[in-house]
């Protein structure tokens, strides 16, 4: 945050360090159903980000007194593996991870029919294997695929993207170096079909008009991520289908 400090993030033609245009997402690939034990799982690569999500549940709540009489308890844990960042991260949860676990959970909750399984819990475990900016929104994108893979009833998926501010301009999907030397970061997650915003945060400085513009840019990028989410889920189902048709035993 806070000032360019001599690092040039845009070239004369308005291209970013990695050659992207301002409204261009990094390459994104999602895979559903990558783990055997979890009830649902997903793996996302967004640029150099690599994130794995496992979903367990609906299942009994432990400790029991946390169970909710009228709805499912969603729990969420976002962690960065120690080797995911340039300087080794201590494995104990940092304050940043504690906060992100909360806002990610609150970004997923609006999409889930929580009332359908009262007194149960669904646990979402997010492990960042490699980090390069925008991990919280990439985590949300992957987590909603994992939830769908687990068969949790949802009214929509959730996908997220960050809008950064670099050299005074808004840029989609900022990476690590843009986050470090840019002037602002506004992660946004939406239910793509419903158009509802389930996460928005910001640091840096944005004018009112920039906020309005960022919301619009995010919406467009999220529409693209939504296509990749659907593709990943379809691929998983067709894989299962093939296995079934091919006579293999499915878990």
């Amino acid at each position, binding site marked *: *945050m*806070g000032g360019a400090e001599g690092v040039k993030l845009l070239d004369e033609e308005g291209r970013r360090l990695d050659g992207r245009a301002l409204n261009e997402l990094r390459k994104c690939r999602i895979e559903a159903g990558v783990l055997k034990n979890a009830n649902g799982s997903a793996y996302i690569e967004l640029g150099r980000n690599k994130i794995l999500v496992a979903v367990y549940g609906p299942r009994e709540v432990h400790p029991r007194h*946390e169970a*909710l009489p*009228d709805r499912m*308890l969603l*729990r*969420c*844990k976002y962690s960065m593996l120690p080797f995911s960042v340039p300087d080794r991260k201590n494995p104990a949860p940092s*304050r*940043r991870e*504690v*906060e992100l*676990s*909360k*806002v990610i959970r*609150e970004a997923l*909750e*609006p999409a889930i029919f*929580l009332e359908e399984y009262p007194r149960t*819990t669904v646990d979402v475990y997010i492990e960042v294997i490699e980090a390069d900016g925008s991990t919280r929104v990439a985590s949300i994108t992957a987590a909603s695929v994992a939830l769908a893979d687990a068969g949790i009833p949802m009214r929509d998926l959730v996908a997220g993207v960050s809008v950064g501010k670099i050299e005074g301009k808004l840029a989609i999907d900022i990476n690590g170096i843009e986050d470090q030397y840019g002037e*602002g970061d*506004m992660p946004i997650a939406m*239910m793509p079909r*419903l*158009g*509802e*915003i*389930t*996460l*928005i*945060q*910001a*640091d*840096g*400085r*944005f*004018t*009112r008009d*920039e*906020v*309005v513009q960022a*919301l*619009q840019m995010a*919406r467009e990028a999220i529409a693209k991520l939504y296509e990749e989410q659907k593709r990943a889920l379809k691929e998983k189902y067709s894989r299962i289908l093939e296995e079934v048709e091919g006579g293999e035993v499915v878990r």
Partner: protein
Amino acid sequence: MSERVHTVVPAPRREAILSMLKRGERVDGRRADEYREVRVETGVVGNAEGSARVSIGHTKVIAGVKASPGSPFPDAPDKGIQIVYAELIPMASPIFEPGPPDENDVELARVVDRGLRSSSTVKLEELALVPGKHVWRIYIDIYPIDHDGNLIDASGLAAVAALLTSKIPKVSVSSNGSLVMEEERVPLPIGDAPVFVTIAKIGDTLVVDPCYEEELVMDARITFAIDREGNVCAIQKGGRGSFSADEVVKALDLALALAPELRSKLPPFPQ
């Protein structure tokens, strides 16, 4: 990791609140865009470099600033260090439990921290003592003591008021390189200062400055930190619900409209 406290409002009460809101009425008689009475008192703790007690309606928060020399972070050798800590102590509400900070304490501290950093409230680049070796560590500790809703705004206001009135010792460096604290005190170097405005969404209605009962029934909340020029220097959405893009912008406009009134409660900038 999980939601520690889930206090439930009986369904009929929730219905009553919602139907009142449809008629434009709030539980405590306010308009949707009406803030509660705000009081800011500074200099309330003699041992702190700066301090403030803030009330918003029945909500009360104390913040204190302490400064001490320390080593800089390796990746910012010429900058002071800002540490914001908040603790939701059980004194303030029956819903707070004793124990180490959980996600609610941490979120509160980090939102205030982001607002302060983004607006350079404390000019950290002016807080090196011996660059690369000794810098000021500025601790901002926030303690709600009575919780009737909207702790973010109250905490932000208390933190900023405490910082604006903080005085730290003048420091000279002796010939052998050690630090000498002088008797004279100087104000903290201050850049800009944010005010925090929180808007709750209850059903289809946006209301500013939710009280505790409104927080219990709200779908979601969104907080904006607004600097002197009306820039947004932090946003934080919370709660299990969602906002449409229009609602976000409408909430921002409410925040921008209320910011000057809140700002007027702040002590003057130093110098």
